[in-house]
């Protein structure tokens, strides 16, 4: 069978080769349009799919970390016992100055080592500050900000916010993680 087919094919191909200029049902333009359309579709799909998956690939880990850090600060470490979101002014000041003499406050000079305070590795950076609505840092006895300055480039910075009561007014506690 193989021998017979290959012999026949060879004969047919030779004949077809000889006839090709007359019997091909395709021009170069026909081929170019077909492949062009196909490549366009492929390119479109490849450029579209990453955008479609974007909402699911955000940096979830930092989101959790920022949220947890904000909760930990506003409801436990800086808050008065049993009064979440109402900050103990003395402990808050000590936290942000990084005062090693923390007295009865429920933390160990955390403001000077935020990564350690929130149980994160050294590659994760934090900034914690208490700000007014327009973003300026509250400074009533000491400036209430600690940590590093967030990068201004394209790096993603995750933010968590809480409304907290400090001394006699409500401010916003902002935790940034990157």
């Amino acid at each position, binding site marked *: 069978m193989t021998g017979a087919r290959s012999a026949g*094919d060879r004969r*047919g*191909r030779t004949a*077809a080769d000889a*006839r*090709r200029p007359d*019997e*091909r*049902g*395709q021009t170069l333009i*026909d*081929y170019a*349009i*077909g*492949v*062009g*359309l*196909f490549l*366009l*579709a*492929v390119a*479109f*799909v490849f450029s*579209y*799919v990453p955008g*479609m998956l974007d*909402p*699911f690939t*955000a940096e*979830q880990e930092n*989101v959790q970390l920022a*949220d947890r850090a*904000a*909760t930990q600060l*506003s409801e436990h470490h800086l808050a008065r016992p049993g*009064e*979440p*979101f*109402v900050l103990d002014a003395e402990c808050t000041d000590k936290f942000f100055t990084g005062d090693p003499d923390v007295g009865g406050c429920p933390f160990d000079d955390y403001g000077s080592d935020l990564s350690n305070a929130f149980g994160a590795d050294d590659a994760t950076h934090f900034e914690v500050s208490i700000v*007014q*609505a327009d973003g300026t840092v509250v400074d009533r006895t000491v400036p209430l900000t600690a940590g590093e300055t967030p990068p201004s480039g394209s790096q993603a910075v995750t933010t*968590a*916010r*809480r*409304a*907290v*009561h400090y001394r*006699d*007014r*409500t401010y*916003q506690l902002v935790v940034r993680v990157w």
Partner: protein
Amino acid sequence: MVGPAGGDRGQAFTLEGFAAGLVLLASLLFALQVTAVTPLTASTSSQHIENQLDATASGVLAGGAENETLRETLLYWNSSRPGHWGADYQGTYSLGGPPTAFGETLNRTFLERGIAFDLNVYYVSNGRRHRHQIVDFGEPSDNAVSATRTVALYDDSELLAADGTPTGTTLAATDDFYVGDDRSPDSGLYALVQVEVVAWRM
């Protein structure tokens, strides 16, 4: 092996390229339909925002309760012509918080960051739970969050004038306070009310 064109050519026609492209686009369309991602689709990131709104609303209420501004806002009531002072829409504030310290805190925390909020007061009257709206931004969205806090009003709590100063009229002496009559005439307590903040992204 031998195609309809008469040769053993392996080259695509326009129609074939077109069909292959259509198959790719159709599969993309299918993927879009099954995932259905919209800005309001529930995901961990919108969960993050809801958590934050929830905690922020609790914080605002806690702060208001701490510095008494929450109770002041509840007492910011015009008893001569029953209604909240300066209410702009059917007895409620619809353009922002009330013109009190707590209202300003609400505006600073929510409104300036593009978040709508309702401020409701729940009270029990004749065995039924009623709702009184102080701030009404309309119907909350599906992703709205709420936080509540219980506030005690006393017989000797004084209603406030339009400029925020006490009028000298106590709750015990007024007839048309929105919470209703004294719940506990024998004690100094007037009523317990539940204040609710509902917040959602506009």
